[in-house]
């Protein structure tokens, strides 16, 4: 009896690409199954590689770039910057073993989603040090360094409480809401039309997207954070972007990362 009920849920959720009012775990399996069915020849673990899983000639070009990755200096500079901020070593004693897999998480005390950049600034502020600008290189290079230490670790976002579920729900709502003058939701481009071309640009599947930030983009002339990408994609549809590390973007990151649970951390990376 229980088993058939479970099967029914699977069948229903795999038909509807928009996760319903179910549990986050059901949402996640529906989301991942949707992409498995849409791209049956692509292994699940490959989805961390964005557009490069969709086009073999792009992939070759990308693999060639990865041999001398343009984010390498960011990792080195980030390590120096991190070590120069002595207090950060105290706040994050396990940094060298990789801490990225612990973010984003829901903090019970402050009742909000904590991302790694926010945790860095919270640490600095708590010890009377000036906070870092989320748009500037220093923090992005630190992220490149810290992310690199976590490469290969599993994405395992947790939703431990009703308050956390609430933040997740808000992130999900953001993801499926139409916005901007062009009236498009994230899901229109990265779920419904993943793999299609918008003008010359391939649309990457939403699955795996948060796994490899910060990314180096030639267009950006350097590295950018996940929230900078959110800003970029909001502007694309002529919507007013939110501040980097705003509550809206942190909730969105929480939802999006949860959807990628089971894949691996793979940052920093390079994208066209």
């Amino acid at each position: 009896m229980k088993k058939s009920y479970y099967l029914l849920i699977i069948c229903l959720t795999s038909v509807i690409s928009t996760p319903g009012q179910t549990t986050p775990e059901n949402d996640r399996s529906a989301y991942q199954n949707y992409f498995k069915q849409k791209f049956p020849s692509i292994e699940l673990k490959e989805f961390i590689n964005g557009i490069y899983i969709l086009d073999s000639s792009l992939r070759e070009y990308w693999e060639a770039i990865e041999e001398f990755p343009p984010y390498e200096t960011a990792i080195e500079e980030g390590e120096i910057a991190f070590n120069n901020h002595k207090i950060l070593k105290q706040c994050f004693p396990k940094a060298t073993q990789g801490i990225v897999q612990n973010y984003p998480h829901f903090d019970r005390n402050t009742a909000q989603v904590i991302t790694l950049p926010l945790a860095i600034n919270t640490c600095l502020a708590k010890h009377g040090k000036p906070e870092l600008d989320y748009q500037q290189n220093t923090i992005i290079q630190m992220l490149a360094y810290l992310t690199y230490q976590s490469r290969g670790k599993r994405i395992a976002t947790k939703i431990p409480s009703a308050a956390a579920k609430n933040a997740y729900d808000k992130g999900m709502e953001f993801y499926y809401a139409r916005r901007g003058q062009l009236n498009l939701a994230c899901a229109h481009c990265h779920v419904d039309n993943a793999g299609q071309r918008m003008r010359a640009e391939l649309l990457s599947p939403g699955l795996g997207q948060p796994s490899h930030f910060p990314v180096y983009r030639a267009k950006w002339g350097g590295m950018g954070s996940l929230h900078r990408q959110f800003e970029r994609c909001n502007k694309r549809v002529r919507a007013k972007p939110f501040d980097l590390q705003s509550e809206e973007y942190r909730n969105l990151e929480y939802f999006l990362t949860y959807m990628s649970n089971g894949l691996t951390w793979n940052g920093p990376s390079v994208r066209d």
Partner: protein
Amino acid sequence: MKNQTVLNLAINILIFFLLSSISASRISFGETQASLIAQGKKIAFNRKKGNCLACHAIKGGSLPGNIGPPLINMRDRYPDKEQLQTQIWDPTQYNQHSIMPPFGKHEILTKEELDKVVEFVYSL
């Protein structure tokens, strides 16, 4: 008698203004159909305006996207031009989940621009 001429005059003035406002709301006399189509094409291809090539293959446009269907045989697809106008004005009227932006409803294009785009698309 005098009243009659005043009335006549008033009616004439009224008719004059009505006529001139109609011709002003139309596109001015000098513009031919071909020029409307050419202007519509420019608007449709302009990335900051229609940017229709983002999603549609269109004759004469390079590197089109493939999110929407190629725009061909529009006269056969839309015997009623009004419906084509609606599709571009607000596609959600036909498909609630449409990814195509509502060019008229969200004022991405002005009414005049949209009319020209319709002329262009109808010529495909």
